[in-house]
């Protein structure tokens, strides 16, 4: 058996727990600012977050509403009654000696998401439940001491727990990516991955294909990019298969991901797992939600990725183009308006969709410390445009660009240039085209003159010979020369036609 055969004889089973930081102004149980990203240590804390004696939690209503919205995105039922429990352990970043979480009666019940794969299919991953909880603070370790920063303590999270329905590294990445889109589109989180707004704990086990029992699982904790979810799954698969093939056991344990080395490392064994002594939190009355209230909050959830996907697919937009459109909610939103205003049965929308792919919208997975500039930039540009020219203007302009391109009045490069100008606040594509001298020349007489000049040029002799010898591709050079002489304005299709007539 080859190494690949051996790997192929195993299957991996993955379940993912994802912590999502909720986009609230204040913390889950206090009025302290929730955006402590750049604040000096321990400045974004209320006595409640500090765990002072006599302090009591006050539940943040917005956090509950965001959880309700998350419930919709996860196709889950939101519980009419849910409760908070205390999870006890001692650690210096845990001010109360317990984390307030939901152990027994979570707010979000079973659901599912469909994560699209590269091949156009999708994988359905069931959601076991999702619960609300508070984040802990942060410790930094120094040579002879450690420092505690409680700015993050009390930050509201929901933890989304999937069923073990994932069986490949690609599917794990697809699940993480789709979860990100759902949560950001629904407005549940800001989705700043660099700052840990979404953190994935990936539970992986392997077993021989067809085996009835799952293998022992390892949990790779705190992954904060889709790629690391994929790579960690791939690495663990190989590691665990190698162990089993060598006759060793997989230890149930927590592992960390070393992004530089692209390997997982053992952190602690589950065998010394703690007893968290869960108990109901009597300081917080149950969250009681009527169906009417849940419906009212969920009405605010905007169009979700899968809904966009359905609309765009109906237009015959290429799958990879849809992927690009969905990578940025502002673009998806804009495209939806384009589709609605488009009278050309989707043809113009498709052109505009393709234009968007050319300006390379931001990939959240590669976000950096400064956040996600391009992502914001496009949204900002669009809203600025709407502010100065009215809502419908940008859509109308986009459709004009598409129409001009479709009518061969402008080249694809020119279309892109005009498109960017519009995004940057200009209006009226025809004026832009004229001002920048981008309109194509489609006057046969004028182009014929240039074609004749090019063909008469001794430099063209070689190409002409090649073409006559059957090397048809050589015509490209001649068309190129025509375009050059016309300063890019000649309609290339027309130029080619005229050249062929003269061969």
């Amino acid at each position, binding site marked *: 058996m080859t190494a690949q055969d051996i790997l192929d004889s195993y299957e991996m089973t993955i379940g993912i727990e994802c912590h999502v930081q909720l986009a609230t102004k204040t913390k889950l149980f206090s009025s302290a600012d929730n955006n402590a990203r750049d604040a000096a240590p321990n400045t974004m804390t209320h006595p409640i977050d500090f765990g002072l004696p*006599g302090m*009591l939690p006050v539940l943040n209503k917005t956090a509950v509403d965001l959880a309700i919205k998350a419930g919709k995105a996860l196709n889950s039922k939101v519980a009419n009654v849910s409760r908070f429990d205390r999870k*006890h352990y001692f650690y210096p970043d845990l*001010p109360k*000696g317990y984390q307030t979480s939901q152990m027994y009666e979570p707010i979000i019940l079973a659901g599912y998401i469909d994560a699209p794969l590269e091949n156009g299919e999708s994988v359905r991953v069931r959601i076991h439940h999702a619960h609300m909880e508070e984040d802990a603070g942060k410790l930094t370790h120094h040579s002879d001491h450690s420092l*505690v920063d409680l700015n993050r303590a009390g930050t509201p999270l929901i933890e989304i727990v999937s069923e073990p329905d994932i069986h490949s590294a690609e599917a794990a990445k697809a699940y993480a990516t789709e979860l990100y889109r759902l949560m950001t589109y629904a407005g549940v989180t800001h989705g700043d991955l660099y700052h840990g707004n979404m953190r994935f704990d990936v539970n992986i086990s392997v077993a021989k294909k067809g085996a009835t029992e799952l293998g022992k699982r390892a949990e790779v904790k705190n992954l904060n990019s889709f790629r690391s979810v994929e790579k960690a799954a791939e690495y663990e698969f190989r590691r665990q298969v190698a162990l089993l093939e060598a006759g060793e056991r997989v230890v149930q344990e927590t592992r960390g991901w070393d992004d530089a080395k692209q390997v997982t490392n053992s952190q602690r064994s589950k065998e010394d797992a703690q*007893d968290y002594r869960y108990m109901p939190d*009597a300081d917080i*009355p149950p969250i009681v939600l009527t169906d009417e209230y849940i419906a009212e909050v969920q009405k605010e959830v905007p169009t979700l990725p899968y809904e966009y996907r359905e609309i765009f697919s109906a237009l015959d937009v290429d799958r990879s183009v849809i992927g690009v459109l969905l990578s940025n909610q502002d673009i998806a939103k804009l495209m939806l308006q384009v589709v609605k205003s488009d009278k050309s049965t989707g043809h113009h929308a498709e052109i505009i969709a393709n234009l968007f792919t050319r300006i390379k919208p931001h990939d959240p997975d590669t976000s950096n410390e400064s956040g996600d500039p391009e992502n914001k930039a496009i949204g900002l540009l669009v809203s600025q445009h709407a502010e100065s020219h009215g809502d419908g203007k940008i859509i109308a302009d986009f459709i004009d660009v598409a129409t001009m391109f479709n009518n061969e009045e402008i080249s694809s490069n020119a279309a892109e240039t005009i498109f960017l100008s519009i995004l940057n606040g200009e209006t009226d594509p025809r004026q832009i085209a004229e001002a920048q001298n981008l309109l194509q020349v489609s006057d046969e007489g004028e182009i014929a003159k240039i074609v004749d000049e090019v063909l008469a040029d001794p430099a063209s002799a070689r190409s002409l010979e090649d073409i006559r010898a059957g090397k048809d591709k050589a015509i490209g050079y001649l068309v190129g020369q025509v375009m050059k002489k016309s300063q890019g304005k000649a309609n290339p299709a027309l130029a080619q036609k005229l050249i062929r007539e003269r061969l």
Partner: protein
Amino acid sequence: MTKISDYRGHTARENVERALEKAKSVEEYNALLSLTEVRALERADMVDRGEITGRLAGVPFVVKDNFLAFGAPTTAASKMLANFNAPLQATAVEKLEAEGAICIGKANLDAFAHGGSTENSAYGPTKNAYDTARVAGGSSGGSAVITALDVVPFALGTDTGGSIRQPASFNGVVGVKPTYGSVSRYGVVAMASSTDTIGCFATTAADAQLVMEVMAGRDDKDMTTLHEDFYGAEQVKPGQKIGLIKQFMGEGTDQEVREKILAYAEKLRAAGHAVEEVDLPIVKHTLAMYYIIVPAEISSNLARYDGIRYGYRAEGVRTLTELYGRSRDEGFVTENKRRIMIGSYVLSSGFFDAYYQQAQKARTLLIREYDELFETYDALIGPTAPTPAFGIGENTNDPIKMYLADIMTVPPSLAGLPAISVPAGVSQSGLPIGVQIIGPMKSDARLLALADSQEEK
């Protein structure tokens, strides 16, 4: 003894100076852990200048030292919080101050309110106001004694299983444990979240009514506070039906105590109320429920005292585990540690269902038994404690015996019901005996009106 109204003819400064002076003259009782003299005098002058007015303008009071209050550290009578200066005040204290009341000091208690005698204080026991060889009761012993010694007309306490009613009974004053959720717990060192209540000691039911009325009400800082306003003073309703709880009038209760309770029942009858014996069979299980649920909540609420951010931290530790272990070992008293251990045990995986969940189910049954009685009866009466104050040191080596002193006060706590203790006379050896009056949820003002109608004016 002086009443709140007796303070009204004097300047706030006179009232406060007199109270401070008197407090200093009764130091042998060890009822106070600190005086908030400087702040008290400042506020007295503010009242006298008319900058603060209100229903309690210029009236001095004392808080149990588990209330976050300015002017002195909030120690909870523990070494753990020996130097803890509160950055804010409890809502109850704020509300009293807003009405012009002036806190002059902070009263002794069993450390973290764990106990029924104030012998568990890290700063020594408080002595009974009637016999210094006997206990003050607890855990709010200091507040009860300072009221009984007439230093202040009222004092604040907390009651989780009898911590106001039992010392009130032992020291011959009125003690109020309100309906769970009537007074905000914000800013009060937590013991057991599901039964902790904030109440008071006073020399008359009418004074207690006024103090409770000021403190009660919804507080957005405590999600468990009730929204309704039900603490308005009431007139006594004639011809009430009152149940005398049979289970507390048997052998476990002192003969003298039983006699005083029966005498109080006679007085109620004479006033036109009907009193008859009622059965509350489940009460024999309530101590078992209480000593599962309350330690469980204690183990959780005391987890924050870890020596990291504030409070006591052991010296010379080398590892984190040692820092936790030694800080908690040295900062807590034995009773704190006993309850943390019991609580941690009953919450452990594998035991949670058998103990905690089972106790919560039994608690539901207790509430149901009370509900059934209150379909017929307006109030229930019985002794507050099986005996008058016991001797200092008498029960300290026998925690079970100590816990049994709470057997009558624990049931209403588990059910969240309002219950008050009012003086019912004095034993032959001169020790006060209290009668406990229990009512349905939110009947607090009615119970106080009934008690008021029985007071000798």
